[in-house]
C-alpha cells in the first residue's frame, strides 16, 4: 500500500517536473526579458570568435551573435551573460537550459541537428579545412601537395578529412601529428613539415604566432565543409525565429549598406528595403513579439555583418581572414539572407 502511494507520488512529481521543464523551455523569450539578459554560451577562448579583451569584455564573431540577440530582444547589446563552455558540455548546457543560445563555432551537421533536440539557426561563418605553406615553396594550390609532410593536430576530424582528400586525389602525404595547436605551430616553425593543416579560421590564428608570419601563406583551397552557426533548443519556435532573424538582419544591413555609423541617418532612407529593415515601414518584429526597432538596435549597437566580420576576424583584426566564401551572395560568397518583407 505504502509502496503504491509512494510510487504514485514519485510519478506525479516526475511529470510535474517534466511539465515544468516544457513550459520553462518554451518561454525563452519571457525568461530572458524577466532576467534582463541573454544567457549565451560561447567558447572558452577562440581567437576572433570569442575571447575576453584586455578590459575583460568578450569580443568576437560568435560573441556578436549573442550581442545582436540581446539588442533585438532587450534593446541593449551589453545585456548578455557569457557562459564559457568547452566542446563536450556545450550541447548539454543548451539542453538543460543553462544557456538560451549557443554561439560557439559549432559545425552544423545532420547528427547534431536531428538527434540532440537542437536547432541550428543559420551560418555565421563558413569554415573549412585549409593549408598553410611557406611562401618559398612556390605552391599555389592544394593539388600540388603530393608527397608533402603535413603537421596536424591529433584527435580532430582534420586528420580524417586530410586522408580522404589525398586518397580521393590519388596523392601521398606524410602526417606529423601533434597534441596541441601550440605544438603544431612549433613543429611547423621548426621545419618538421612543409604544410600545416587546420580549419582556415584557426590557420589565420596560428599564422600570426609564427616568428615571421609574412613568410607563410594560407592556400585558398578548402577541402571540407564546416558551416559554423548559432544553436537553440528545439521546441521554442519563437526564440528560434528571433535568433535566426537577428543574424539575417545583420546580413541584410550589409546588403543595403546600413552600418552602425549611418543607421540613424538611414532611418529617413527612401529605400523601401531599408525602411522595412529599420522598422520605418511596418513592424516586422511583431511576429517575434519584438518592437519595430529590433533590427535598428542590432545594427546601431553591434553593426552589420561586414563590420562584425572585419572587426573580429577580417582585415581590421590581426587575423586578416579574407571574406572569401563568407562574402554576400551578390559579392561572390555564400552569405544570403531572406528579405525582410
Amino acid at each position: 500500500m505504502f509502496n503504491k502511494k509512494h510510487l504514485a507520488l514519485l510519478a506525479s512529481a516526475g511529470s510535474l517536473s517534466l511539465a515544468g521543464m516544457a513550459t520553462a523551455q518554451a518561454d525563452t523569450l519571457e525568461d530572458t526579458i524577466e532576467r534582463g539578459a541573454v544567457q549565451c554560451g560561447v567558447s572558452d577562448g577562440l581567437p576572433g570568435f570569442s575571447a575576453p579583451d584586455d578590459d575583460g569584455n568578450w569580443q568576437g564573431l560568435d560573441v556578436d551573435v549573442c550581442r545582436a540577440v540581446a539588442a533585438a530582444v532587450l534593446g541593449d547589446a551589453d545585456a548578455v551573460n557569457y557562459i564559457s563552455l568547452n566542446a563536450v558540455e556545450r550541447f548539454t548546457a543548451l539542453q538543460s537550459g543553462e544557456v538560451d543560445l549557443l554561439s560557439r563555432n559549432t559545425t552544423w551537421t545532420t547528427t547534431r541537428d536531428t538527434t540532440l533536440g537542437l536547432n541550428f539557426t543559420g551560418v555565421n561563418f563558413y569554415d573549412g579545412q585549409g593549408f598553410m605553406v611557406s611562401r618559398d615553396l612556390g605552391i599555389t594550390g592544394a593539388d600540388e601537395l603530393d608527397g608533402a609532410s603535413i603537421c596536424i593536430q591529433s584527435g580532430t576530424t582534420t586528420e580524417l578529412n586530410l586522408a580522404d582528400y589525398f586518397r580521393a586525389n590519388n596523392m601521398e602525404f606524410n602526417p606529423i601529428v601533434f597534441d596541441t595547436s601550440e605544438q603544431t605551430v612549433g613543429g611547423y616553425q621548426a621545419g618538421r613539415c612543409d604544410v600545416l593543416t587546420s580549419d582556415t579560421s584557426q590557420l589565420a590564428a596560428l599564422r600570426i604566432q609564427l616568428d615571421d608570419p609574412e613568410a607563410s601563406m594560407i592556400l585558398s583551397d578548402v577541402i571540407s565543409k564546416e558551416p559554423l552557426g548559432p544553436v537553440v533548443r528545439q521546441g521554442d519556435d519563437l526564440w528560434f525565429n528571433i535568433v535566426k532573424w537577428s543574424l539575417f538582419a545583420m546580413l541584410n544591413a550589409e546588403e543595403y549598406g546600413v552600418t552602425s555609423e549611418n543607421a540613424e541617418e538611414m532611418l529617413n532612407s527612401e529605400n523601401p528595403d531599408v525602411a522595412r529593415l529599420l522598422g520605418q515601414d511596418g513592424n516586422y518584429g511583431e511576429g517575434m513579439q519584438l518592437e519595430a526597432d529590433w533590427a535598428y538596435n542590432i545594427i546601431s549597437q553591434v553593426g552589420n555583418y561586414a563590420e562584425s566580420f572585419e572587426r573580429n576576424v577580417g582585415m581590421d583584426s590581426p587575423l586578416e581572414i579574407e571574406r572569401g566564401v563568407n562574402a554576400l551572395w551578390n559579392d561572390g560568397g555564400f552569405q544570403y539572407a531572406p528579405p525582410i518583407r
Partner: protein
Amino acid sequence: MIHNKETIPQRPAPKGTIGPVAWLRGNLFNGPINSVFTLLGLYVLYLLVVPTVQWAFIDANWVGDSREDCTRAGACWVFVNARFSQFMYGLYPSEEYWRANIVFAMFAAIIAWMVIPRLPFKRWMALFALLIFPVIAYVLLHGGYFDLPRVSTHRWGGLMLTLLLASVGMIGALPIGIVLALGRRSNMPIVKTFCVIFIEFWRGVPLITILFMASVMLPLFLPSEISVDRLVRALIGLTLFQSAYMAEVIRGGLQAIPKGQDEAAAALGMTYWKRMGLIVMPQALKMMIPGIVNTFISLFKDTTLVMIIGLFDLLGIVQAALSDSRWLGFSIEGYVFAAFVFWIFCFSMSRYSQYLERKLNTGHKH
C-alpha cells in the same frame, strides 16, 4: 714528573680545514670523479641559466600596452602586465575590484593572524574566519545586498577563484574528512559501511569525472526550476572529493596512536567524543601535518581542473587571454607567470607546515 696544570688553550682549526676553499674542497672537489661531476654540473647549469636569464630578464620587454611593444627577442612581460588585473580577478567588473580587494585583504589578515604565534584570541579569530568571514566574502563578492550591484559567479575568475576554490575545499574537506575517518573506524556497522562506501566511491573516481558529472550530467537530472550555480556545483564536487582523501590521511594518523591512549581515556570515564577530541585527535593531527599539507597542496593545484568545465581559474584565464587575437603567441609568458604564482602559494604552504612541525615537535626527536 711534570704536571701541566693549565689546560691547553684552544687553537683555531688548521688552515686547510675551514673557510670557503676548504668547503669547496670537502664538498665539491674531494677526488677526481667528484671534481669532474662538479665541473659537468656547473656547465649544465651554465647552459640552462644563461639563456633563461637572457630570455626572462635581459632581452625581455617590460613596458608597453600592445604586442607591437614586444621585440620577441626575449619574454614579453607586457602581455602579463596588460592582463594582470584579469589574471587576478577574472572577468570581474573593474569598477568593483575594491570589493574583491577587501576580501583579499581580510583573507590575508586572517591568515597572518593565525600564522603569527604572538597574536592573541586565535580561537575567536578561527571562529570568525569559519563562520562570519565566508558570509562577508559572499556578500561582498556576489553583491545584491546593501546596494552592491550583483556580480554573478560566471564573471569570477583568476587568482581570486583559485583561492576561493582551494580555501573552500580545504576548510570543507578537513571536518568532513575527520568525521569520515572516525566513522570508518567506528564499531557501528551502518555508519562504518556508509563511510567506507563514500570514501571508496569518491577516491575511485578521477576528479575530472566528478567535475564533468557536476557540470554536464547534474543539470539534466535536476528539474529545470532548480538550477544550481556551476561554481557551487564545482565547489561541492571538489570538497567531497578532497574529504575522501583527507579521511584516509587522518585515518592513517589515528592508526598510529597506541590503543592504550584511548583505553586509558575510557578508563577515566571519558565519553567517545571527549576521548577523540581531547586525547586521540590532538596527538593524531600533530602527526598528520605533512600528510594534510600534502593533500592541501595537491588540492590547490587540482583546482586548475575546473578550467575544463568552463570556469576561469588562474590557469583558465591565462589560456583565455592567450586566445585573444591581439595577444596570440605569448603562451610561454602566460604559463610561466601562472606557474610562478602557483609555486609561491605551494611553497609558502610547504614552509608553513615545516614550521608547524618544528613548533609542535611532532617528530618526537627529543
